[in-house]
C-alpha cells in the first residue's frame, strides 16, 4: 500500500488531484491511499505517509516541511508545476512514486 499525502493551503485544489491520482493508481492496479490536507495539518499527518507532495502556493514552506519529513524519513517535494497546472493525476502519481524510489 502506497501512502501519498498531498497538501495545499486549504486542501481544496489538491483534493481534486487526489481523485485523479487515485483513479490512475486504480487503473494500473496499484493499491494506494492518497489524501489531501490543508497546510496546517501537513506536519501532523506526514508521519502516516510514505511521501508528501505540496501545492505551488506552499513551495515557500518546502524547506521547513522537508526538515520535518526527515524525522520520519518521508520525502517532501512540490508538485510538478505542469502536472499541477493541468490537473494531471498520472504525472503527479508518477512523481510521488519517483520520490519514494519506486520507479
Amino acid at each position, binding site marked *: 500500500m502506497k501512502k501519498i499525502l498531498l497538501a495545499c493551503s486549504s486542501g481544496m485544489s489538491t483534493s481534486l488531484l487526489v481523485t485523479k491520482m487515485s483513479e490512475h493508481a486504480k487503473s494500473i492496479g496499484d493499491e494506494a491511499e492518497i489524501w489531501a490536507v490543508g497546510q496546517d495539518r501537513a506536519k501532523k499527518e506526514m508521519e502516516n505517509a510514505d511521501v508528501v507532495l505540496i*501545492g*505551488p502556493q506552499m513551495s*515557500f514552506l518546502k524547506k521547513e516541511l522537508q526538515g520535518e519529513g526527515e524525522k520520519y524519513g518521508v520525502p517532501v517535494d512540490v508538485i510538478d508545476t505542469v502536472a499541477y*497546472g*493541468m*490537473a494531471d493525476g498520472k504525472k503527479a502519481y508518477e512523481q510521488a512514486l519517483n520520490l519514494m524510489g519506486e520507479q
Partner: protein
Amino acid sequence: MMEKLKLENLTTEQINFQLISHSGNARSKIIQSLREYREGNTAESENLLAKAEEDLQGAHDIHFQMVQKEASGEKTDISLLLMHAEDHLMSTVTMKELVREMLEIFKKRDD
C-alpha cells in the same frame, strides 16, 4: 516558466488549476521575497518579486481570456473550484501590491 496556454485547449478544471497554479507560484515567491529582504539579500528580494509578477501575468492572461469569453456572450460554468481559484488570484495580487510597498518602506528606512 509555463508557455502561454489558449483557453480553448483546456478543460474547465484545467483552467481553474492554471489560475491556482500561477497564483500559487507567485504567492510563494512573494513570501520568499520578504524573507530574502529580512536576510539582507535586497537584490534577490527584488528579483523574486519581479518573478512573482511574471507568474501573476500568467494568471491574468488566462483570466483575461475568460472575461473576454464571457463578454462575447459565452457563459462560464461557476463552480466552487472557480471561486477558490479567484480567491487565490485576488489574495495574491493584494499580497504583491502590499509587499512591493513594504519593501519600499524598508529600503528607505534601511538606507
